[in-house]
């Protein structure tokens, strides 16, 4: 009895302890497939957002496969996703990319959403000429490393600086503080914003970091409060942002938080309620949502049973961008040719109109969002800001 129990426990331990490999639909009919690796945090501190991205990817692959797949030189190829969970840990991301490159022999990887992890996996991808497209990573350093095989198909940190300065100037906020995550994304804001702010005559009175797994922000927020800023520039994914906004409302309700694009305003609205959330504004990853987005939302809701957000649009877009590049290049083996195709690609996605620069950086139109009367309103950043924003 004891032995049986021990054996069963051991087996279960082994199963649960193994890294989270969730392969996509297996293809065993001799159909032509192109394997695409997908690396995202599906568990851990940033699991919620990670799953949003991965779900967008899954839906896109399903749609493409259902309509026959992609066409390379007259032949039809289905996309076979190989999905690994990075568990919001860099070593897991490294395990994932190593498996994808050496074991699964993929040439194309979508992910990760976290700048740290993306930078880490490029250490393996670049020398192996594996093309990586991240549809979320926003840290500025990713396009400054001279990588040839990295493409960022996402709104990134530099894009929100001008709007931030504009907002602060209009609201006459001369002293600001920054609250960012203690990772590459957060640190990217710290290297970009203060110099630009100081030049615009805005003083940065303090910079505080929070840990991704941190759930209690009261100490951090109290510390910021003691520095007396007039506004706080916040960089936080929804996973952290909701709690930060909530606790900030309790601790420093008179100091506005201006989140730079990691959080989904709808979720903050849900947590705070329309009254407390009224006139909160955010940098938004996507602009006003049109028909294409509405169609996507229907599909997504049917498949996953919940409302999708910009992170899912990004995941979705990344698959179609890759597919378009593959078809344009006419090969699924030669990543140099695919890279060339990416550089001359123009793709109209759910997030916006994508095109790429030689260093892998994207050209996208910036956007902002604000909450008014219980609704989230999005507009392009270059359009006039709302009247009440002063």
């Amino acid at each position, binding site marked *: 009895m*004891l032995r049986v*129990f021990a054996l069963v*426990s051991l087996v*279960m*331990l082994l199963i*649960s*302890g193994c890294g989270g490999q969730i392969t996509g639909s297996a293809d065993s009919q001799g159909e032509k497939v192109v394997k695409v690796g997908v690396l995202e945090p*599906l*568990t*851990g*501190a940033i*699991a*919620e957002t990670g*799953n949003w991205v991965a779900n967008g990817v899954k839906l896109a692959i399903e749609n493409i496969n259902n309509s026959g797949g992609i066409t390379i030189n007259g032949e039809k190829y289905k996309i076979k996703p190989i999905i690994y969970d990075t568990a919001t840990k860099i070593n897991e991301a490294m395990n994932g990319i190593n498996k994808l490159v050496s074991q699964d022999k993929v040439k194309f990887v979508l992910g990760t959403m976290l700048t740290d992890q993306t930078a880490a996996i490029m250490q393996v991808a670049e020398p192996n000429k594996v093309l990586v497209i991240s549809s979320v990573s926003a840290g500025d350093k990713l396009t400054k490393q001279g990588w040839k095989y990295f493409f960022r198909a996402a709104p990134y940190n530099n894009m929100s600086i001008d709007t931030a300065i504009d907002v602060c100037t209009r609201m006459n906020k001369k002293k600001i503080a920054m609250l960012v995550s*203690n990772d590459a994304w957060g640190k990217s804001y710290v290297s970009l914003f203060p110099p630009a702010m100081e030049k615009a005559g805005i003083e940065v009175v303090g910079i*505080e*970091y*929070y*840990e991704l*797994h*941190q*759930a*209690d922000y*009261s*100490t*951090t927020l*109290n*510390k910021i409060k*003691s520095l007396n800023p007039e506004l706080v520039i916040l960089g936080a994914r929804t*996973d952290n942002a*909701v*709690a930060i906004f*909530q606790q900030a*409302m*309790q*601790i420093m309700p008179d100091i506005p938080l201006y989140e730079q694009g990691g959080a989904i305003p709808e979720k903050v609205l849900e*947590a705070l309620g329309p009254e*407390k959330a009224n006139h909160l504004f955010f940098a938004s990853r996507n602009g006003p949502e049109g028909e294409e987005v509405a169609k996507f939302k229907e599909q997504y809701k049917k498949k996953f049973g919940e409302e999708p957000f910009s992170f899912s649009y990004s995941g979705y877009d990344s698959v179609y961008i890759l597919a378009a590049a593959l078809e344009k290049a006419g090969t699924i083996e030669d990543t140099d040719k695919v890279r060339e195709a990416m550089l001359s690609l123009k793709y109209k996605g759910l997030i916006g109109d994508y095109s790429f620069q030689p260093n892998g950086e994207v050209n996208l139109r910036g956007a902002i969002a604000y909450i008014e009367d219980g609704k989230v309103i999005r507009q392009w950043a270059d359009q006039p800001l709302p009247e009440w924003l002063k």
Partner: protein
Amino acid sequence: MLFIQLVVDSLVLGSIYALMAIGFTMIFGILHIINLAHGELFVLGAFTAFFLVGAGVNFILALLIAMLVVAILGLIMERGVYRFIKKEAVLNTMLASIGLSLFLQNVYILIFGPQTQQIYGSTETINLLGIIITWQRLILVIIAVTVVILLNLLVKRTWFGKALRATALDPQVAQLMGIDTGRIRAVTFALGSALAAAAGALLVSIIPVSATSGFIPATKAFIITIFGGIGSITGAIVGALLLALAENLAAGYIASSYTNMIAYAFLVLVLLIRPDGIFGRRSF
């Protein structure tokens, strides 16, 4: 000003740490089990409370039910796993508990998903001379203190408490006195688990908790237990408050990334200076 605010916040955090640590130290002291899956009991308590409150159940009732549910899980853990492990070799219990912890974490991910949950209660705050504390957090401290007082009464004033202390002191003599030590151990484990559940339920009412949130509270409970003395409830309470204070002061005056480091520094300090713990009675 900041200092006083930090101290007040430490009371809140410390009460929750105390509940975790008391449960852990009881199990360690009386059953000689290092239960690193203590964090998973905490998480189950949090999720149970979360879902009950979501279904409209009053918070206090949800807390009690969560404690009951997790007590049952604790019983299953003790009877199903730990009973078969020779506890004289304490390391074995630790290894088994790591396995249990991994297993439970992944079961939680399967059942509850990997995302965080939190009970969004009222966010009414009280402002006392510039110190802000939400009603939620204040109530949390009151509940935690109540639980500790009740526990104290249980241990000091009831027959069961006497049997517990006897088993802790010397299990063999306790058996000779007619105490069913097997039953006492099982109930103690259940009780310790219920305390972890209480900590979880209280915590999820103020901050988000996810399936993998259990590791850090369990580690802190372990550290506080060593710090306060294995088996010492007073030690657990004092250690918990001191740790919470040190963490908050470090986070407040240096940076948030130092909180875990402080916890481990505590442990190292204690092992160097007073290995039995502050209130330690037994050494291993």
